[in-house]
């Protein structure tokens, strides 16, 4: 565990060093940390604050403002389910319920509500690990959650 957090710390320092010459690099740094580690661990707050010469409170404030940033390690799959109007108009509420209840059964799939995936003309829409899937039904989304649970995470 100790060692683990030391490697994480080094990775975070590398990421900060890579971005330091950009204008206003905080968001790109947080994105890079999350894409490398899967989440933004607490130790990142101090590291990034030091690198950017900002306060811990500033970094914490930004980290918690944006829905995208996770502060805990993620499940094996990320499922975003659209709950917005164009999807609602064609059964999106039932798709959300199905996803949420399938995920409740300890599936290892993180189910998250989003408000429009820009896939409205092929609604209802979900996004699994960055891949958008359209015209889903409640059954299909349940199967996806259960099925994703059985397959290994891609790399």
């Amino acid at each position, binding site marked *: 565990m100790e060692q683990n957090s030391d490697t994480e710390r080094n990775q975070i320092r590398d990421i900060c060093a890579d971005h330091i010459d950009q204008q206003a690099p905080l968001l790109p740094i947080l994105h890079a940390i999350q894409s490398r580690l899967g989440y933004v661990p607490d130790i990142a707050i101090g590291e990034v604050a030091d690198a950017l010469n900002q306060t811990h409170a500033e970094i914490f404030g930004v980290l918690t403002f*944006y829905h995208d940033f996770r502060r805990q390690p993620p499940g094996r799959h990320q499922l975003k389910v659209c709950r917005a109007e164009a999807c609602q108009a064609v059964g999106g509420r039932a798709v959300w319920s199905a996803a949420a209840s399938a995920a409740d059964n300890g599936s290892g799939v993180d189910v998250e509500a989003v*408000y429009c995936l*820009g896939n409205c003309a092929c609604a209802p*829409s979900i996004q699994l690990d960055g891949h*958008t899937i359209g*015209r889903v039904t409640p059954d299909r989304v349940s199967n996806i959650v259960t099925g994703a649970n059985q397959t290994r995470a891609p790399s």
Partner: protein
Amino acid sequence: MKYFIPKDSAAVSIGAEQVADALTVAAPDAEIVRTGSRGLYWLEPLVEIEHDGRRIGFGPIETDEVSGLVETILGGKPESHPKYVGRIEQLLRDQGQQRLTFARCGVIEPIDFDAFMAHGGTAGLRTALDQSGQTTIDAVKESGLRGRGGAGFPAGIKWQTVHDTPGAEKFVVCNADEGDSGTFADRMLMEGDPFTLLEGMAIAGVATGATRGYIYLRSEYPDAFQTLNEAINIARRHNLLGSNILGSGKSFDVEIRLGAGAYICGEETSMLESLEGKRGLVRFKPPLPAIQGFQSKPTVINNVITLSSVPTILAHSAATYHSLGINKSRGTLTLQLSGNVARPGLYEIPFGATLEHVINELGGGSASGRPVRTAQVGGPLGAYVPASHFDTPIGYEELGERNAMVGHGGVVVFDDTVNMAEQARFAMEFCDLESCGKCTPCRVGSVRAQEVIDQIVAGHDIEANADLLRELMELMAQGSLCAHGGMAPAPVLSALNHFSEDFGVREPAEIN
């Protein structure tokens, strides 16, 4: 034989990738071009071929229909296929579409620079480089182009302010946050014809004296991110971007910044805060971003579609663009039709068509076959327009008179199974969830409104609570700093006023 299949993420979301795979098996010698989408989503996955020099389409094609399709095509009788839709250009024309901004989208391979050039690419930028910035700005003004991101502010006037504000460093920021539900034009364009956006940004830079551009892209669009990144690299190699654009000696370059899942960061000042690495709290105006924007420097902020419409305006003429549309709404609107509608998709049509025409003629009415009850026009902050008002022409002022708005051009259709009290409550949930928190009417009002709607729906003091809800909406509309809290009452009030029966309210209030 040359086949065209979209790589657009929405087409892929319903099987375009599998269709393309099946085609490589069924027609191993065929050339397959992966394009953007034509926006005819009810026909996706759409397969097109080149036949007698014309593009002919078939759709929607299921994977197991591919080998039969290939056989029919090779048999020389494409029109005999049950999924034959004929010439796509003709179909678009029959719908009254005028593809100006989306001229290349769905036609060419998105990051094929030669194809971009062969279809008129860079003509607008060349014009801009051959004339003064002021002449370009005058043309944008003359075209009547207004912001397509939501507020509808005249683009030329904004550019003029940036042009006239002295500054050693100026910026162009493209708003690609596309947070409005029911909208996908930005995504389609960025995935389907990214060079056009880059060209539009370069024109804005050349005209106003800005040398750096940022695209603030929502993180929900990973495919657009990848396509744009590739396009930027290719554009640099061809001097569409860089330190010597098209050999002019002028420089302009673009960088993408990813958002992080905050709707409010689509609001321009919140976006600037976010770009600067801060929480996306809305700024007070003044100062205008055009005068003090990114890093307090003069900054053009425009939506993807606004910027992408400029190349065609300069390449043809401002007068041609202005000749389309009605009153103060000129040119084409890239209308996005979705929800419970038979033919959802992107319709680039001149301003002025009625909602009736768009929803029932073009869209074919509801997908469910049930009566259409309402459409939400202009995104999640737009009003629910009842079917009895579908005679309203689509224009900024015309919709405004019905308390609706053009917004980013989204029209979401609902059939008669919709529960409008549920929709009203959702509008407040969304307002609450995405409030930046800076002002009380929005942050607290949206929470209170949900409670009040719950009371009404539960049948408690219905009339008194309905009055309270109206009062609260008035307060939010008047007292909010930005349009997030200021416009969120529109869907609630339109639902309450036009569909009071869904709330159990007896007396419909004054209806407008």
